[in-house]
């Protein structure tokens, strides 16, 4: 294997072998959610509310049930009552109760012997609605006279007398905020808005579910987290978590949106009602856009104080976010925590509220909350740099956080790499490219915490010395490759000798999903520990055979060997030899590790984008794009670069054209990819990447996690570039051509 661009002292880490799942994916052998077929399987279709807010008066399924081949219809009446908190939210979002809360909210589901029959039957299910007033926009929803989405949804944090749709309040900060602003030479304050966007994963949600009257069942499902799905489905259906065995399929993208349940309980409920026959449920793209997790929309006030040489003295942020009709779905807390995390500011104050609206329940989307927050803060920072005639990159360096600084959100930073990132950015040739007419350059920083979480990994030595790793985190970004590299590095064997399987819920203890950029960090850390445990056992086997003390054996280059001349003269015993003998020499050898992984290392990034804006149409073209980010250590640099590029591309879509467009009737107007405009390949230049490596001391190989930080700087970077190109500062996203052209024309009139 080529060791091009080798950056470390390691044998394998930092190399770029083919991904183990690559061949299956390019040949079509990989099995995704919709690829499973079982004997006797039924097909499901879902009836969804066409109204943004409506009381369900009556559901009549008699005509559907009269069709030959229709085996079951379920409504909310088929689910247990009495759930509370997030369990109730999940149940209510899976299937409406008395009231449909958004356009696309499921109200009934049917299972039949073919997909076409199920779809025909769904059309025959008659639902009588009483349409209720609805509210969509976050600022409209917070008004005291707004239509009430749900009464009694607020938690204890909301003061009495708050507007009815306010369900959560958050505030925190430190330092003397008034003194901070008083010390500033320039204080500026503006309001920013971002519209909801969808994760846009290519694979729609799909599952095949089977559940018997005994509460025992199985599910094959496209998910980021089989244990989360199991627990959530069990709660919603009132069965034991261990009664359900969940196997994750291959996954065609998730970005956070596949960490929770949507239609899975419907498939299980249909199966239970149809006598335990397996039920396949595959969402259409429209279902995905209407009824699965988009991100929140946000309205945000930011106030910054800066000295004339560019030092930030105080910052105040006040965010309002809606995440649909359910408490806790918006990432307002994360948004506040990320907002000022890049900067060392003496006084910071954060306030935020979560507001209900008649929209789908928001799900996590890549660094939840951080991109919107960055849009607001980094846009204002850029404006102030220009007003004071300061270089925006130098100002970011001047205020950059580093080890030992108290973070805006509370803790004190351990070893982090923002300064190194900004210095690498400053040195990049893209900053020397000359800009032409109608072109602009935008710079922004971004942050994500990264995450550890519940993790359980097993590893087994095969009879031929090859190794199987059982991991519980679905591979959404190349984690099988990175796990194989780390395990092979630790064991001193070849990358190809390690197979990583993503296993079902019966095979390991509880694993959190592949979320929070945790898979390579947390599963990797546990896999390395499991490998070390197996090494210990293999050394014991060798010691036993050689008749020497266990401590006198060391592991090196894939073999046990005497620690030194005093230990005795024995030839190295390879992992293959140990594997071949283990059956008669103490039995199987495995390693296992479980942890609530600590030692998480935060990741910072900086993006630089050059754009050209057509002054006559307002259309923005991305000319150049640079991502610089601290990976801690890039285990497999190609997949780290892929994450950087993917984050940038999703951010470009969010910044330029993606948005949920609602009609006056509260219906989503663009629930197809034709009108929900994610970037296409020809919209993009090659995204340049620089991997900065400031190793995380909390991981055996220095990993931080790289999945999410990359989507945090693009929104403001592009807005800053468009502002430079046009002279018009736009404080709401997306920067769609009509909006940009209107801003250019307004500037001309002004």
């Amino acid at each position, binding site marked *: 294997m080529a060791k091009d661009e080798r950056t470390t002292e390691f044998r394998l880490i930092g190399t770029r072998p083919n991904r183990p799942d690559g061949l299956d994916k390019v040949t079509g052998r990989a099995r995704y959610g919709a690829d499973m077929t079982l004997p006797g399987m039924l097909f499901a279709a879902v009836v969804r509310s066409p109204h943004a807010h409506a009381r369900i008066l009556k559901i009549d399924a008699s005509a559907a049930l009269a069709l030959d081949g229709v085996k079951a219809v379920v409504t909310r009446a088929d689910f247990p009552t009495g759930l509370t908190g997030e369990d109730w939210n999940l149940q209510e979002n899976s299937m409406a109760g008395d009231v449909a809360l958004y356009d696309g909210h499921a109200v009934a589901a049917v299972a039949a012997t073919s997909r076409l029959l199920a779809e025909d039957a769904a059309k025959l299910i008659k639902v009588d609605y009483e349409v209720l007033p609805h509210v969509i926009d976050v600022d409209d929803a917070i008004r005291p006279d707004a239509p009430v989405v749900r009464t009694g949804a607020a938690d204890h944090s909301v003061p009495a007398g708050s507007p009815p749709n306010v369900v959560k309040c958050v505030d925190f900060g430190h330092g003397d905020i008034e003194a901070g602003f008083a010390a500033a030479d320039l204080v500026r304050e503006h309001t920013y808005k971002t519209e909801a966007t969808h994760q846009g994963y290519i694979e729609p949600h799909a599952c095949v579910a089977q559940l018997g009257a005994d509460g025992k069942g199985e599910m094959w499902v496209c998910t980021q987290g089989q244990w989360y799905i199991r627990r959530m489905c069990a709660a919603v259906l009132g069965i034991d978590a261990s009664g359900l065995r969940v196997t994750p399929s291959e996954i065609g993208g998730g970005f956070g949106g596949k960490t929770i349940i949507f239609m899975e309980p419907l498939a299980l409920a249909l199966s239970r009602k149809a006598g335990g026959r397996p039920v396949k449920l595959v969402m259409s793209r429209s279902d995905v856009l209407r009824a699965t997790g988009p991100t929140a929309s946000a309205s945000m006030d930011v106030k910054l104080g800066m000295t004339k040489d560019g030092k930030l003295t105080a910052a105040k942020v006040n965010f309002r976010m809606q995440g649909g009709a359910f408490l806790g779905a918006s990432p307002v807390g994360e948004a506040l925590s990320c907002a000022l995390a890049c900067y060392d500011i003496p006084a910071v104050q954060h306030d935020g509220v979560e507001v209900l609206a008649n929209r789908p329940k928001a799900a996590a989307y890549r660094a939840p909350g951080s991109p919107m927050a960055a849009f607001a803060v980094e846009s204002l920072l850029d404006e102030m740099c220009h007003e004071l005639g300061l270089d925006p990159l130098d100002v970011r360096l001047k205020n950059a956080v580093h080890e030992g600084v108290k973070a805006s959100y509370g803790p004190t930073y351990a070893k982090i790499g923002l300064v190194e990132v900004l210095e690498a950015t400053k040195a990049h040739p893209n900053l020397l490219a000359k800009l032409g007419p109608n072109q602009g350059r935008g710079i922004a920083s971004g942050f994500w915490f990264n995450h550890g979480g519940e993790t359980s990994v097993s590893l087994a030595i095969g009879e031929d010395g090859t190794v199987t790793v059982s991991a519980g985190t679905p591979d959404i970004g190349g984690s099988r490759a990175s796990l194989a590299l780390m395990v092979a590095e630790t064991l001193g064997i070849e990358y190809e000798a390690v197979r990583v399987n993503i296993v079902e819920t019966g095979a390991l203890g509880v694993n959190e999903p592949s979320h929070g950029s945790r898979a390579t960090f947390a599963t990797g850390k546990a896999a390395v520990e499991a490998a070390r445990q197996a090494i210990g056992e293999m050394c014991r086997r060798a010691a036993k055979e050689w008749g020497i003390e266990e401590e006198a054996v060391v592991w090196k280059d894939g073999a046990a060997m005497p620690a030194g001349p005093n230990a005795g003269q024995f030839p190295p015993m390879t992992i293959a030899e140990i594997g071949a003998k283990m059956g008669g020499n103490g039995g199987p050898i495995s390693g296992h590790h479980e942890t609530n992984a600590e030692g998480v290392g935060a990741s910072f990034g900086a993006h630089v984008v050059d754009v050209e804006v057509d002054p*006559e149409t307002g259309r923005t073209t991305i000319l150049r794009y640079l991502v610089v980010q601290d990976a801690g250590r890039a285990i497999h640099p190609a997949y780290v670069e892929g994450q950087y590029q993917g984050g940038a591309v999703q951010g470009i879509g969010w910044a330029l054209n993606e948005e949920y467009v609602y009609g006056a009737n509260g219906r989503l107007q663009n629930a197809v990819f034709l009108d929900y405009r994610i970037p296409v390949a020809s919209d993009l230049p090659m995204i340049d990447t620089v991997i900065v490596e400031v190793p995380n001391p909390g991981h055996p190989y220095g990993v931080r996690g790289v999945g999410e930080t990359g989507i945090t700087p693009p929104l403001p970077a592009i807005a800053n570039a468009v502002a430079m190109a046009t002279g018009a500062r736009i404080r709401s996203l997306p920067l769609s051509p009509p909006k940009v052209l209107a801003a250019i024309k307004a500037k001309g009139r002004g």
Partner: protein
Amino acid sequence: MHYHKPQTFEDAIKIAASARGVTRFLAGGTDVLVQLRAGTVTPDDLIDLKLIPGVHDIVRAADGGWTIGIAVSGAELGRHAGLVTEWPGVVEGMNLVGSTQVQGRATLAGNLCNGSPAADSVPGLVAAGATVTVVGPNGTRRLAVEDIPASPGRTHLQPGEIVSAIHLPPRGLNGGDAYLRFIPRTEMDIAVVGCAISLTLDGDKIATARVALGAVAPKVILVAEAAAILIGTTLDDNALSALQAAATAAAQPITDRRGTVEFRKDVTAVLAARTARIAYTRAKGEAK
């Protein structure tokens, strides 16, 4: 649903005449099959026209123009040297429809009969002065392309009528055409505004002109006032400004998820001028 494979247009007409429910004709199928899968249209009778002899052919007509079969795909059009040379605006409009895969199936006739005001190939055909042969239970007639669309999703074809061929007039000397559309992305999108212009020159002066706009009215429109402004000019700045004003005045767009009235009117003016410049350059025989 009944699927039919007639071998002649006569048979196709007979099948259509005896069909009682929802009838759809299948050429490329890039609209019909999508509508079928989305559940928006479920035909009772699906009549596939692809097997009728001649529908895949592009033929030089006796008058020097072209006759294009109704099952000729966008990809085939784009590879036809004669059409690309003589009617680059028609070809580039068709080639903007969908993806590479869709180009292998999508047809001019289908794009026209789908009735979308945003159809990318239709403004180019209208500007070119293209006509279609329509066959039906009451005989055969010849219609101008601009007389086919009626409103979004509807055409002036009578029940049972089928477009059986598309005819482009002779290009003649010193002619050029062009089509531009505005989309927020670079491909795989629906025109927010489309504009096609075809013109001929007498020396540096424009002798004849036709201007068509897409996505700014309930159907693709031919804007005679805009064309009249161009005739006799050398496409100087005054002519371009007047063209922009006339095109904008003719545009009657709506605000929807793809654009606002104001934006569509602004972009109509922009595209009119840009399209005219390209058509003029092509008419002069200069590469573009």
